[in-house]
C-alpha cells in the first residue's frame, strides 16, 4: 500500500513541477494523471516481463476512489462563506446551474449514445 501511495504522490509532484515550470493552464494533478496513464500503458506494451506494483496500485486506487465523494465535502462547506452573495442571486444562480447542467447532460449523453460502438460489455 505504501508503494501505491508513494507512486501516486510522486506522479502528482512531477505534475505540479511541470505545471509550474511550463506555466500551462492544466492543473498539476491532471498532468500527473496523464503521465501515470502513459507509464502504465508503455509498461503493458513493451515491458510486460518486468515485475511491477500494478496489482497493488489497482487494489489501492479502487478502494481510494470509493471515497471520492468524501473529498468534496470541505470545499462544499465553503458555501457558508458566500451565503449573502448567493442569497441575493439565489434564484438566478440555481436556475443557471440546474438548466445548464441538465441541458449539458442531455446533449452530451445523446451524442455519445449515437456515436458509441455497440459491443462494450467487456
Amino acid at each position, binding site marked *: 500500500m505504501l508503494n501505491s501511495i508513494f507512486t501516486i504522490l510522486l506522479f502528482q509532484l512531477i505534475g505540479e513541477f511541470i505545471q509550474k515550470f511550463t506555466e500551462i493552464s492544466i*492543473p498539476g494533478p491532471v498532468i500527473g494523471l496523464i503521465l501515470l496513464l502513459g507509464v502504465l500503458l508503455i509498461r503493458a506494451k513493451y515491458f510486460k516481463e518486468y515485475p511491477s506494483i500494478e496489482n497493488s496500485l489497482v487494489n489501492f486506487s479502487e478502494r481510494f476512489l470509493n471515497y471520492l465523494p468524501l473529498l468534496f465535502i*470541505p470545499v462544499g462547506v465553503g458555501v457558508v462563506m458566500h451565503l449573502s452573495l448567493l442569497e441575493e442571486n439565489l434564484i438566478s444562480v440555481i436556475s443557471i446551474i440546474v438548466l445548464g447542467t441538465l441541458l449539458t447532460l442531455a446533449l*452530451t449523453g445523446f451524442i455519445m449514445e449515437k456515436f458509441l460502438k455497440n459491443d462494450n460489455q467487456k
Partner: protein
Amino acid sequence: MIDQEKLYNIWVYLQAEPLFWLTLTIGSYIISDLIYKKSNLFPLFNPVAISVLIVSFILIIFDIKYERYFEGAKFIHFLLGPVTVALAIPIYKKWHLIILNSKAILISLIIGSVFAISITYILSLQFRIQEELILSLLPRNVTAPIAMGISEIIGGIPSLTAIITIITGIIGASLGVFVFDLMKLKKMEARGFSLGLASHGIGTARAMSKNKNAGVFAAVGMGLSGLITSILVPLFLKMIL
C-alpha cells in the same frame, strides 16, 4: 451533577482543534453514505449534499468560522489531488474500450464542453447577474481544483467557483438519471461519460456506484473535460469580448 462550566471549557478547547472538524467531516459522510445506501442509491439522497448540509448547519449554529473548520478538513481536501492522479488506473484498465470509442469520445467531448460553457454564459446574460458572478460560474462543470484555477485566471472568485462546482456536481449526480431515463439512453457508457463531463467527480462517483463501465467513462469524461475546459474558457472570453 455534570459540571457545565467544565464541559463548556472542553468544548471551547476542542472546537479550536483540527481533530474535531476532521472527525465531524468523516462522521457526517458515514451517516450520509449509510442513508444513500439504505435508500438503494436513491439519487436525491446524494451523500455530498447531505454531508455538506449537516456540517454547514453545525458551523452556523455554533457560529464557527469556515477557516477554523478548514484547519481540520484540509487533511481531506488535500486528497483531491492524489485522487485525480489515481483516476489514471480505472482509465488504464478499460483503455481498450476508450480506443474502440475514441471517435465518440472526441466528438462528445468537444460539443459537450463548448455547450456547457456557452449555455452558462447565455443563461447568465438572461438572468442579468453581475460580471464577477458570471466569471465564477463559467468553469462550473469541471472538478473543483481545476475550476478554481480557471476562475482565478479569468478574474472570478475561486472559493465561490468551488461551491458552484459542488452544487453542479450534486445536481448532475442527483437529477442526471431522470434526464437519461426521459431520453431513453440505453448505453451505460454514454450515461457515464455525460455525467463525468457535466458534473465532474460527484457525477463520476454516482456513475461508479451504479456500473463499472459507466464509472470508467465518467472518469474519462471528467479528466478530458477538465483538460479542454481549462483551455476553452479563456479562449471563449477572448472571443466574446
